[in-house]
């Protein structure tokens, strides 16, 4: 019996250890400080500095297979003579987790689903809003009505015709709280949707809302078929109007999408796209190196810098930003001078260099290329100045220093390094940081409850500054309790940006907003890193500032 008892103990201990271990290192990306699609990102302007990977190493290799070979597992495609052929293989570390495009927030889900679905409007490589399933659109003079003229003759993959009924049903599904769609907050100004005819939808808005155009171009506002919504098949049988047709999904292994040769933008250049999961990024890089993967998505800078051989590296600034969030509801951080002192005591460049191998550039609050923040308003001009920091602390009566509890997440590779660099820098002026490194779900829980003095964070960016910050920096924003700071100035600027439709005027509003925010320093914005796309045997792929893979619709295999 004692042997049996021992064995039982062993089983129990094994399982307990397994669960704890898995919970501790389980970072499937779903918990990013923003499961938002807008975060992963690259900037087209920076395409030029994507280097062709390092020195050609002498390849001893015998039979290195070339990418896109297809391994005879090519999917059955249209048998027309001009139908594209070949399978383009995309590799990444995580599989998609939700098939319902209105519920999907993890990057890996959005990246796959937006190939299958279209949206009313779409984003260009520079994030400019353009036509999508709506060919044209106009606001009424008072800005309270948005009329959209839909493209005709567009078919769902299942065969139904897309019309205003589908558009209205999709928008209403997002607006319905029962659905649980995160993007609801972005289009909540829609009071009702009218369908004057089959190719027109009219959105009646409760208030003027310029950024709603960007929200309608967000993949989370995907257009579904009204029949699929009624039948309840959205979560299990993806059926969109997009450039690729949902094919075979081996959960956790691979997803195969076939070309929609009848897509209204024209047929894709490849017969199919296979999205393959290799959970370990070093292995992913190796797979791109041997040519088995044409496009590898890497997030860890420590892995990305090792790329070499035949790999072409696209390295583009992310919209997501690294920041030190402070809780201004707590003493002594409630004092603006103290927050400014912390801002002065920090050397942002050193954090990028020591914490993330220099893989990133210093940024202010807004990382969207068209609105990118300057260093206006930053205390000490954004330079490290320990003397000024000490003076500000003395002024606030905190000259002897104090202690702060800092929560540090584990869902991005450089978090702990960054926290330690900040700890050392603030230690110089007598501010002692007590670092609490937390597993993702614990971190999220503490973060949502604003249960911290400060938090090291990687936050997703959005395609529009209003979307990006209305939740934090307006006094009635959903996450204003977490942001723990508001002011009349910020409220007014946010309200002005919402109704302003002139791009130049909007840019000025957000420049002022950014300067006001940096001066008040409720958070310290540090840098934005890069999104990496490792290419091998693929051409004509345009990365997006959102991390989107939508230009796979134009990409072709080389050779």
């Amino acid at each position, binding site marked *: 019996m004692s042997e*049996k008892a021992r064995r*039982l103990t062993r*089983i*129990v201990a*094994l*399982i307990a250890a*397994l*669960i704890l271990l*898995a*919970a501790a290192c389980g970072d*499937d990306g*779903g*918990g*990013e*400080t*923003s499961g*938002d699609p807008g975060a992963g990102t690259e900037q087209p302007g920076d395409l030029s500095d994507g280097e062709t990977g390092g020195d050609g*190493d002498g*390849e*001893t*290799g*015998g039979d290195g*297979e070339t990418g896109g070979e297809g*391994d005879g597992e090519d999917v059955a495609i249209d048998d027309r003579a001009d139908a594209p052929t070949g399978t383009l293989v995309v590799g990444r570390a995580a*599989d998609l*987790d*939700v098939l319902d495009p209105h519920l999907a*927030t993890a990057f890996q889900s959005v990246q796959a689903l937006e190939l299958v679905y279209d949206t009313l409007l779409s984003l260009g490589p520079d994030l400019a809003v353009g036509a999508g399933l709506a060919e044209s659109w106009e606001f009424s003079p008072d800005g309270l009505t948005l009329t959209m003229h839909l493209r005709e003759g567009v078919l769902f993959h299942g065969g139904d015709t897309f019309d205003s009924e589908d558009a209205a049903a999709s928008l209403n599904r997002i607006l319905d*709280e*029962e659905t*649980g769609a*995160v993007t609801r*907050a972005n289009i909540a100004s829609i009071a009702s949707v009218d369908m004057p005819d089959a190719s027109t939808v009219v959105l009646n808005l409760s208030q003027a809302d310029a950024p709603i155009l960007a929200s309608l171009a967000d993949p989370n506002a995907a257009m579904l078929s009204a029949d699929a919504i009624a039948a309840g098949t959205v*979560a299990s049988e993806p059926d969109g109007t997009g450039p690729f047709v949902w094919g075979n999904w*081996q*959960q*956790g*292994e691979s997803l195969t999408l076939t070309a929609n040769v009848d897509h209204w933008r024209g047929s894709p250049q490849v017969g199919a796209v296979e999205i*393959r999961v*290799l*959970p*370990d990024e*070093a*292995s992913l890089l*190796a*797979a791109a*190196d*041997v040519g*088995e993967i044409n496009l590898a998505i890497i997030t860890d800078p420590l892995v990305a810098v090792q790329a*070499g051989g035949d790999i072409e590296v696209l390295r583009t600034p992310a919209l997501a930003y690294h920041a030190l969030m402070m809780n201004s509801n707590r003493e002594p951080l409630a004092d603006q001078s103290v927050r400014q002192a912390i801002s002065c005591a920090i050397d942002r460049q050193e954090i990028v260099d020591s914490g993330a191998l220099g893989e990133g550039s210093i940024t202010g609050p807004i990382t969207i290329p068209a609105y990118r923040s300057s260093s206006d308003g930053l205390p000490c001009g954004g330079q490290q100045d320990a003397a000024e920091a000490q003076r500000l602390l003395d002024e606030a009566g905190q000259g002897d220093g104090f202690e702060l509890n800092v929560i540090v997440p584990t869902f991005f590779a450089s978090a702990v390094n960054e926290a330690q660099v900040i700890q050392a820098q603030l230690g110089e002026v007598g501010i002692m940081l007590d670092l609490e490194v937390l*597993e*993702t*779900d614990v971190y*999220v*829980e503490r973060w*949502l409850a604003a249960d911290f003095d400060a938090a090291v964070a990687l936050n997703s960016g959005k395609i529009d500054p209003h979307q990006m910050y209305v*939740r934090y920096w307006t006094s009635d924003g*959903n*996450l204003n309790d*977490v942001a723990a700071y508001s002011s009349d100035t910020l409220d007014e600027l946010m309200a002005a940006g919402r109704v302003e439709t002139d791009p130049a005027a909007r840019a000025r509003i957000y420049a002022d907003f950014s300067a006001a925010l940096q001066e008040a320093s409720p958070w310290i914005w540090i840098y934005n890193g890069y999104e990496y796309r490792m290419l091998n045997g693929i051409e004509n792929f345009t990365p997006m500032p959102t991390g989107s893979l939508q230009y796979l619709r134009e990409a072709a295999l080389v050779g």
Partner: protein
Amino acid sequence: MPWRYVLVRLITSVLTLLGVALMVFVVLRLLPGDEITSTFGTETGILTDKQIESLRSYYGVDQPAPQQFLSWLGNVVTGNLGLSVRSGTSVGSLIRDALPVTVELALLSILIGLVIGVPLGVLSGARAGTRGDATIQVFGLLGLGIPNFVIGTFAVTLFASWFHYFPNARGYAAPWEDPWLNVQQMMFPAITLGLALSGTIMRTTRSAFLETSSQPFVRTALGKGLSARRVRYVHILRNAFIPILTITGIQFGYLLGGTVIVEQIFAMPGLGRLVLDGIGKREYAVVQSSILVIAGLFVMVNMLVDVLYARLDPRIRYQ
């Protein structure tokens, strides 16, 4: 083997599994977060109360815990292992896909571990105290000491960048689809795991061998004029096999759930990864059912080991 014994074993096995199921259920509920926070992360803060309420019912976490447990258990008993709500896939089919991968990997690893470990253990035991023994012992310690993610990552990087060879990059191929590719894909992970195992097996073999060697029957056998080699491999090894079998059984059980890291590195879609993903996403049904299957196999392997004891050593009788 008397029926009474079998019956008792079966009953205790069922109780063990029930205990495992209950414990897994409780531990999962104790972990912070749920399927909603793990899906939405900090975006959860954007959801309205009503949205959260409806998502809770969608993911089936709105019921009281005991009711969740009983309805899951009730389903399991009738053969329904639950549903991965996010993907709309049944947990049964997820496990059906993952189980063969893990079992194949575990068997191959054990095989490699035994093939390397047993002969080395015998050699080492027969030369106890010599330089050869010390060398083998160092090898054993290295096998035990070097984490498999180091060996695995090293193998991937080395073969990929020097020889442009990384079969696992081509997407997992089941043995019945493409046997040759499957063998290539299994080779590296099995060697990685097998090397570590061989260390354990070698050390167990060595100490069992030494213990058995000191018994009188060995002296008798040698005294009868049998060759040292014959005594070593037939008489001593056979008598030393019980502890080796025990450790192999335990290690096999461990491999069913414990190959996560190697599965990650080599992109093998096995049970360990299924459980890990499930925990990360707080997909309770996936984790509960997968672990139940792993525990069930563990129990079965243990029973098998007990049966083998009796076959190997006729002195062992079960009452």
